[in-house]
């Protein structure tokens, strides 16, 4: 078959298999072309993207003091490096990766036209991501100890940012901080809750089950608000910053979901594993730590990554306790009468950012799933 015939065959099978398909294709193609044309002509001519570039600082960091922005760049580099290390655990640096990297830099070069003053820092952040990716591939010790490194990074990030005061954290920075903190804290809590739900001690089991079920049947916004309201009542002497209260709410809520993913992992571990470990004389604690948990986490990890995506996607809910995250920052920019005509530009930018980050997390989850499934005997 010649290449031409192959192409025609592809068209026939995929677009014109039946009269109905042909009709659908003929209707959809012009509509699609029209939509793409309308969007592109708007984006390239009518749209005024300067509003995005001018308010980049607010979108990314909220009310963070401008004189301390270099702290944010350090933090961005550290988080990028962490992301690179996480990437090295699931994706080898192959051709696809190189293409993605080049695309990232291209986007950056494009962005430089609009925001030249931040280009060097942005390049350094991207470079940190790639350096960590490559180093992680060379040094297996690093990527095998991702969890402690992530905890270390998180603590370092919080320490670096704390002099500025949590009430000044905002924008995308806040969304990412919430995601990172809640993601890391929910996993140990989830492990405890999942073991608690399977415990032999009936009262402990009932408590953990009750907690998980209640958290899973009320809305996140209510939990976050409740924690925010309750803290000043319970601890009137110690005022806790809004951000921390929000973080506690997110952690408490999502640890119930994490517990369910981990529980499904625990249930997938064959009973023979427990019996074998018991016959070796392992203590109950060692049995869980050495034998059960690693196997359970392997099953739970894709779900847990999905949980992280959920945390990121629901992070904008912190608007309810008066915090300015990425979405709220965008809305505040639109509330300025000067920008009232720029609704679509801001929304397109925000959608794009959320979509890119969300897709990266989904992609990582998928790769991780494939990688983890490789070693499993079915």
């Amino acid at each position: 078959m010649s290449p031409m015939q192959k192409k025609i065959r592809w068209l026939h099978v995929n677009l014109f298999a039946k009269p109905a398909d042909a009709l659908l294709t003929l209707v959809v193609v012009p509509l699609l072309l029209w939509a793409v044309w309308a969007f592109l002509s708007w984006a390239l001519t009518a749209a005024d993207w300067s509003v995005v570039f001018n308010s980049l600082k607010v979108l990314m960091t909220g009310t963070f003091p401008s004189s301390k922005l270099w702290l944010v760049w350090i933090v961005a580099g550290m988080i990028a490096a962490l992301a690179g290390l996480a990437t090295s655990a699931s994706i080898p640096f192959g051709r696809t990766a190189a293409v993605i990297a080049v695309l990232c830099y291209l986007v950056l070069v494009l962005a430089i036209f609009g925001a030249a003053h931040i280009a060097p820092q942005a390049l350094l952040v991207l470079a940190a991501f790639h350096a960590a990716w490559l180093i992680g591939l060379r040094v297996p010790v690093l990527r095998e100890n991702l969890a402690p490194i992530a905890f270390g990074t998180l603590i370092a990030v919080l320490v670096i940012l704390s002099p500025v005061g949590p009430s000044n954290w905002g924008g995308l920075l806040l969304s990412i901080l919430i995601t990172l903190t809640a993601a890391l804290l929910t996993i140990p809590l989830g492990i405890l809750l999942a073991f608690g739900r399977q415990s032999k001690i009936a009262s402990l089991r009932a408590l953990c089950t009750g907690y998980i079920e209640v958290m899973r049947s009320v809305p996140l916004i209510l939990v976050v608000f409740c924690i925010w309201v309750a803290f000043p009542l319970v601890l009137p002497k110690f005022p806790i910053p809004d951000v921390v209260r929000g973080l506690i709410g997110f952690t408490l809520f999502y640890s119930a979901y994490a517990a369910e993913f981990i529980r499904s992992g625990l249930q997938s571990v064959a009973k023979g594993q427990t019996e074998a470990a018991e016959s070796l004389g392992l203590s109950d604690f060692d049995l869980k730590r050495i034998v059960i948990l690693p196997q359970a986490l392997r099953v739970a990890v894709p779900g847990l990554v999905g949980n992280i995506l959920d945390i990121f996607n629901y992070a904008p809910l912190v608007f309810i306790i008066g915090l300015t995250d990425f979405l709220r920052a965008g809305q505040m920019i639109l509330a300025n009468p000067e920008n009232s005509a720029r609704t679509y530009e801001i929304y397109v930018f925000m959608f794009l950012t959320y979509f890119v980050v969300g897709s990266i997390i989904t992609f990582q989850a998928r790769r991780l799933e494939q990688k983890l499934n490789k070693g499993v005997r079915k």
Partner: protein
Amino acid sequence: MTVSNSLRWRRLRRTSVQVGVLGIAALLLVLLGLAVRNGFAERGVSFSFDFLWQRAGFEISEGRVLTWSGFTSFGADMANWQALAAGLGNTLKVAVVAVLLSTLLGVALGVSRLSTNWLIRKLAFTATEFLRNTPLLIQLTFWYVAVVLQLPGLRDAPHFWGAIISRQGLWLPRPEFTSGPGLWLALAAVVTLALMLMRRFQPWRRHLAGAGVALLALAFVLGFRIHLDLPEAGRFRASGGVAISPEFTALLIALTANTAAYIGEIIRGAIEAVPRGQWEAADAIGLSRRHQLREVILPQVFRVVMPSLGNQYLNLAKNTSLGIAIGYPDLFNVYGTVSNQTGRSLEGVLIAMGIYLVLSWVISLLVNVANNRLKIPGVR
């Protein structure tokens, strides 16, 4: 140590652990309660639910309450609990409609992901990925700010078959029935015709159909008529017809689209899990693809997806609480107003949590009932 002795020891240990766990939990609760009481005392108030029966003193933009004189719009003179009830009504209103629409749209999306047409497949995939990988909250505010509020104003709003679509809201024509004995006969006719659809009455369906038509004819003779109450555009709002607020519209669209993406994934997974032989067998007896799907595949799919769909319905019901972002007066929003007005945020949170818990249980219960109904008896 004898065997019985060691067993006794073990039992003692177990009991003490149980008591210990319960004791610690109880202690924590008591400490929490004391702390809360101190917090309340410091503010000079006490923990009480009296505020529920006090006058609300605020208006909500939409919402009806059941009173002695039927459903009436909520007013500032009503009590706080009635405000919460109106909020719950709004939550239920948007949740029920969104559940129905998102199921339909989700099935369509799921089927489209497996279409024979490459374009449709890719389009459905892109839409699903986009809806799942961006926050629901930004979708919601986008629908509200960038779509619904950008509609033309009332004065130059387009009319479609009597419906008005404008920035100030949606007005649909409402069917109105003439009252009198004809109305009751017509109602009886509808009930009779509805009975026809039930499996138990299948043998008598002809008689039922005849009776229904006869009743309807009699009603017509007695002067029963349906006419449409068409909305008319005024200066700030339209009068007549069924009014739908822009907030409701935006929330409904956002919830429907978002949940449909998740439902679509579930349906696609379930369709792919149907054994190939089912497709081949349906093909072999000469069914067209549409009929293969409708008569053979989807009935099997619906039997297995109910629990997963139930999870999505639960999520949807909880996500209605995001309505506060655009000012839709759902339960959470009204609770926020009430707690602002009365300062009773903690008591209010407990009530709201209780209501959401009950709501979740009711949904799980309904899904379980549906699941048991759909199961083929005897099949695993």
